[in-house]
């Protein structure tokens, strides 16, 4: 089997992540719910994970709040900051985890369009401003094209115009360097199981100073049990109920490893695989490739179509006949498909990781060539 669905979840998980989860299951109790050694061990793991995440993103460890995934983080940030009378600037490349919470707020929305290579036209930010603009919400890396947004530039714009800047880092965390302070990010939403190499059911949001998010979920906090309201202080403010400490133990191990290893060498490896794939495919007849794959910064995602063939049929053939795992369909990003005119056809997405090999890429190219020839 050749696994090219790393944008869905990274695979395989590193052995030290698996070991950390098993160790946690063997040794810890519940985070923040007592003072005996078992519970203290759980809380120490959770606290250490906050510190390692904070180091990776140059965030404040006490404002790293854990959730189940990036979707829950984005829902928390959007529904907790945006009201019906606000205006928000976002883009057509967004995932439904941004779009649906935004629609739910009832806010006035402006969608930045994309160019023919799928790059979001961030130069239209200025012209999109309104008196009631409250936030800019963008994904750092598109989950469909792999295109990267210059979030430092957008952050500067938000700073100049006093707007919240909410970043969906689902595809970029653990791949591209993100500095919350330098990039003026108000809320950074991440998942633990993609580029961060951890297990599913982990994720979170890093919240900048002076950003007061109204909590989405309230309940058990481990403190102030007789208060009728959930604590205001971060990170408890956005964390109700028992955390996934076993999963966070795995995330802690992977983020610690990423901090020690640095992201550059991993990113270069997966980018070179994506480029190899692109360069071999771009001149083939009947192949349509979406996205700016050869751009200086590009996530290791390449989405294609073969003539007018249904993307689902192509993806299924790749799996059934060649054992190649890809993702077909709309990838939960409806507006970018409307922009590319692929609502009905979908796209076949190949997403690479530093754990893939050149040999796997070459085998995949040969499979596609065979499908085209057939």
């Amino acid at each position, binding site marked *: 089997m050749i696994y090219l669905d790393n944008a869905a979840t990274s695979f395989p998980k590193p052995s030290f992540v698996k070991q950390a989860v098993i160790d946690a299951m063997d040794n810890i109790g519940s*985070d*923040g*719910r*007592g*003072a005996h050694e078992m519970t*203290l061990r759980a*809380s*120490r793991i*959770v*606290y250490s994970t*906050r510190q390692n995440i904070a180091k990776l993103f140059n965030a404040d*460890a*006490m404002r790293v709040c854990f959730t189940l995934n990036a979707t829950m983080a984005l829902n928390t940030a959007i529904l907790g900051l945006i009201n019906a009378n606000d205006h928000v600037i976002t883009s057509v490349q967004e995932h439904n985890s941004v779009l649906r919470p935004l629609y739910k707020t009832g806010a006035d929305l402006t969608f930045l369009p994309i160019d023919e290579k799928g790059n979001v036209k961030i130069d239209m930010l200025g012209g999109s401003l309104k008196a009631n603009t409250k936030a800019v919400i963008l994904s750092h890396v598109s989950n469909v094209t792999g295109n990267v947004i210059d979030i430092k530039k957008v952050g500067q714009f938000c700073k100049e115009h006093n707007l919240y800047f909410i970043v969906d880092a689902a595809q970029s965390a653990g791949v591209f360097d993100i500095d919350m302070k330098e990039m003026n990010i108000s809320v950074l939403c991440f998942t633990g199981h993609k580029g961060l190499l951890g297990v599913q059911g982990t994720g979170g949001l890093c919240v900048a100073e002076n950003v007061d998010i109204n909590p989405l979920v309230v309940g058990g*906090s*481990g*403190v*102030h*049990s*007789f*208060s009728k309201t959930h*604590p*205001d*202080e*971060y*990170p*408890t403010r956005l964390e109700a109920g028992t955390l996934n400490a076993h999963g966070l133990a795995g995330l802690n191990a992977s983020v610690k490893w990423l901090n020690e290893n640095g992201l550059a060498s991993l990113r270069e490896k997966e980018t070179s695989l994506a480029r190899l794939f692109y360069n071999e495919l771009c001149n083939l007849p009947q192949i349509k490739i979406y996205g700016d794959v050869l751009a200086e910064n590009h996530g290791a995602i390449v989405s294609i179509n073969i003539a007018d063939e249904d993307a689902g049929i192509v993806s299924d053939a790749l799996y059934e006949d060649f054992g190649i795992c890809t993702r077909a369909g709309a990838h939960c990003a409806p507006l970018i498909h409307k922009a590319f005119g692929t609502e009905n056809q979908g796209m076949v997405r190949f997403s690479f990781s530093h754990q893939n090999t050149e040999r796997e890429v070459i085998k995949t190219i040969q499979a596609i060539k065979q499908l085209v020839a057939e």
Partner: protein
Amino acid sequence: MIKRKKKEWLIVTFHTTAAAFQMENTAKNIGLTGRLIPVPREISAGCGLAWRDEKDKQEEIKKCLENIEYEKIVLLTI
């Protein structure tokens, strides 16, 4: 009442569990021997963690708390 010898301790309380562990980390780094305990009811009803340490460690504790958001420091016989 349970049979347990009482003693006067320095107790620090926090608004969040995360802050309590920030304290544990900082305290360990400077060699303090205290530990986290359940918040005594004399201070706050409910649940949560507090730092308990020797009462003569007030200065070291205050140094630890310079960058930690804590609720209060009290002397308590428990």
